[in-house]
């Protein structure tokens, strides 16, 4: 069962409260998403750690029910 975009956004925001989350449904099938997550908490930490925090927020769904999530993380400008 694929995840809804809103559900992805809610889970990320629950774990990273200041996050600005933009989700794009790439294929229009509710299964292939791109997410851009911007948070002040990412400042000064390596990209791998930034993305791990987002994966952690998704509670193990990444690589499972969520196969295709293109992920970009950044700090606010």
């Amino acid at each position, binding site marked *: 069962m694929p995840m809804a975009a809103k559900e992805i956004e809610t889970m990320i925001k629950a774990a990273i409260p200041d996050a600005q989350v933009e989700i794009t449904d790439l294929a229009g099938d509710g299964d292939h998403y791109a997410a851009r997550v911007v948070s002040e908490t990412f400042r000064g930490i390596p990209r*791998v750690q930034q993305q791990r925090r987002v994966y952690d927020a998704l509670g193990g769904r990444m*690589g499972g029910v969520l196969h295709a999530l293109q992920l970009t993380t950044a700090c606010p400008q």
Partner: protein
Amino acid sequence: MTDDPQSRIDSTVKTNDVVLFMKGTPLFPQCGFSSRAVSILEHLGVEYASIDVLQDQGVRQGIKEYSDWPTIPQLYVKGEFVGGSDIMMEMYESGELAQLLQDQGVVTAQ
């Protein structure tokens, strides 16, 4: 050589300068993310070892524990986990990936 996937992964990562764990092969990638990772390495003209996780269930699961990273592809340079395809693309576009390979003494065509 032991059959333990963690030891096999560790030995692969440490005996090759650049290793890509992927789904499929560079000629026939079985997933869009793996395909993108291959394209980046081909553009950089770097020699790399590729491991098809679809051929080995132990490695397919084990690599996620090895790096504490839930998805494939995964790129390693000189034994260090660099990232998945999104991080590879960001680093490629910013020139950081070419710089990292150069800093690590890995030969590229550029």
